[in-house]
């Protein structure tokens, strides 16, 4: 399993892996927002957490279709399906590797974009923390979509369409926890804990669903 994790990490970080594209996309999406809503710093500070979250959500969806597709192309998916340890565990490790390579850089880049959005320190910290806790759920939900669309030649767009509605709870609780940290009356902890619960819930459901879909799609 460690070998699989390292292999996936190396593959996605080295050339052709496309892990950097995600950060660039995130940066571009957030940079485009001020052109749309105007450079009003107060307005940007108010909508900043939401923009950072939406940008991270879209960027996290970007690389999802490659999660199993590259393995299917070079035939290693069949080996993964046939090997001794349970497929659910394998999928979980692949999700972890995908998250570390593609999504963790987004979390690390988010404070910089928070500065662009004129957010204060508390909001930046809260956005980073909620992204750190909530983004694994995006990858785990996305694994189901990626597994479902693994045999499709142009599955990338379809994966996004299928996965995006399922990601809405994560977005809602992530953004509301971030706002709760900034605005006084609302408590921070309840939405944050629910976000954690959603991530843990999908840590169970996501790999099971993805394994089921992979077994059925890989005839």
């Amino acid at each position: 399993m460690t070998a699989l994790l390292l292999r996936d990490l190396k593959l996605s970080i080295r050339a052709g892996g496309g892990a950097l594209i995600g950060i660039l996309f995130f940066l571009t999406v957030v940079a485009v927002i001020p052109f749309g809503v105007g450079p009003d710093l107060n307005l940007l500070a108010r909508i900043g957490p939401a923009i950072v979250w939406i940008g991270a959500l879209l960027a996290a969806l970007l690389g999802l279709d490659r999660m199993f597709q590259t393995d299917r192309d070079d035939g290693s998916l069949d080996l993964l399906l046939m090997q001794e340890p349970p497929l659910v565990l394998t999928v979980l490790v692949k999700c972890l590797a995908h998250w570390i390579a593609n999504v963790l850089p987004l979390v690390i880049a988010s404070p910089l974009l928070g500065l662009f959005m004129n957010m204060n320190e508390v909001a930046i910290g809260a956005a980073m923390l909620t992204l750190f806790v909530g983004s694994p759920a995006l990858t785990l939900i996305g694994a189901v979509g990626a597994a479902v669309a693994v045999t499709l030649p142009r599955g990338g767009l379809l994966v996004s369409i299928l996965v995006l509605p399922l990601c809405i709870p994560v977005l809602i609780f992530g953004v509301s926890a971030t706002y709760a940290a900034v605005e006084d009356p609302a408590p921070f902890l309840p939405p944050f804990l629910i976000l954690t619960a959603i991530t843990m819930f999908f840590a169970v459901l996501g790999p099971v669903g993805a394994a089921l879909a992979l077994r059925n799609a890989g005839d």
Partner: protein
Amino acid sequence: MTESLAIRKFSDLANPTCFLALAERVLPWLAALCCVLLAVGLFLSFTTEGDYQQGDTVRIMYIHVPAAWLSMMCYSVMALSAIGTLVWRHPLADVSHKAAAPLGAAFTLIALVTGSLWGKPMWGTWWVWDARLTSVFILFLMYLGLIALNRSMDDPSRAARVSAVLILVGFVNIPIIKFSVDWWNTLHQPASVIRLDGPTIDPEFLWPLLIMAVAFTLLFFCLHIMAMRNEIWRRRVATQRRLAARMAGRGD
């Protein structure tokens, strides 16, 4: 003993010819009952007095509420069929949830459009990002995604199994979406303008509503059985064509 008989009856339906024969017998009765109930329900809903506040617009409710209810029920039917596909590999279940997806999308669209038409005179706006509206809209998007997924695969049995996985994941997620959207709404919009079915629903409104709900349910099952029959026929035609093409190739 009776249970094993029931199971055998159920697995008999795996033979498409058995199902087609059953559909042939059931469908006229179902359709007739549905027509009668629809007629009665529509008559009642146009003859009852309008609400003293809402006037005639309250009649939209008799279409809107059953359609919204069916949009939920259709997803439940699809989830049951998905379990049938994945657990028992029942061929009819594949056909069932493929046929149900467009119907569910249509009923959800009806609920959204009528709700919007009702919302304009009542709330003064076509659309509010209210919890219930938003979650129904997400349900609509999920139906469309499922249809797109089913369309994008050539092999029908593989498409059925793969979309069954997605249906089940979505089914688990629907309560979460509903709950979280409720939560999001109460945080951002505490003073809600929604008053969907009024504080107390008068028997005068209740009876047409119930009859319409039953009529819509029957309508759904009629259309569902018809769509399943069409799907079976379509697959037969495709197989025949393939056979014919092979024969023609051999003839040359």
